[in-house]
């Protein structure tokens, strides 16, 4: 079995950079907003409750997870020589990041429309 980045190197390279550029805008926005956030639970609910912020948080988390998936894949490809172990780890990585994305999407949906 070949490593995943072996056959999709160019796509991986471009995706890593496109997500990086998006995160260079979204991460400072998210962290500064959180630092300025006041009022505990109610304040946080009100902030995420704004549609523009909900979209921003959703994009921030999903793009972060995708970028994480790409980066950790390179580390697995570099250090794990055994093809079986590598395949299991990459599969696990996909499952975990997808699950985290689905949980976030559901949480955002329930905050925005759950009342």
């Amino acid at each position, binding site marked *: 079995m070949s490593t995943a980045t072996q056959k999709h190197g160019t796509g991986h390279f471009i995706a890593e950079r496109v997500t990086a550029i998006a995160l260079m805008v979204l991460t400072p926005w998210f962290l500064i907003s959180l*630092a300025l956030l006041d009022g505990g639970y109610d304040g946080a609910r009100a902030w995420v409750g704004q549609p523009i912020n909900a979209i921003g948080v959703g994009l921030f988390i999903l793009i972060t997870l995708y970028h994480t998936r790409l980066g950790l894949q390179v580390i697995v490809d570099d250090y794990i020589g055994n093809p079986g172990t590598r395949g299991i780890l990459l599969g696990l990585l996909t499952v975990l990041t997808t699950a985290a994305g689905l949980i976030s999407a*559901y949480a955002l949906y329930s905050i925005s429309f759950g009342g």
Partner: protein
Amino acid sequence: MAASSPEPNLGARPLAPHLQVWRWHATMLTSILNRMTGSGLAAGAIGVVIWLAALAGGPQRFVTMEGVVRSLPGQVILFLLAVAAAFHFAAGVRHLIWDAERGLAPHTAEVTAWASIIFAVLAPIGLWALAGGF
């Protein structure tokens, strides 16, 4: 290996230079730090998902989560994650500049390596100042 081996000088050849014989450079440190901070930030990403899930889960869950984050160990971990985020951000900017075939000269790379280390410490301090102190 048999004595009739066609390879000359077997056993008497110099070894390839390994990590420990290189003079230390800031660029070496920042190279591995980019990987280490990236891996650490994977845990940070899960933390953000937990924050959002707690927010969706109601006031009680959110207060529990906030208690953990505001405890001393929680604040130390959060600060280290902020340092990792700032460093990984700076390292990403450096990589994009290198992709444009700029900043690759050894001295320039050394200067931007130190700049990213300094930024990694200063940016989180600024963030905590925004939040109203430590």
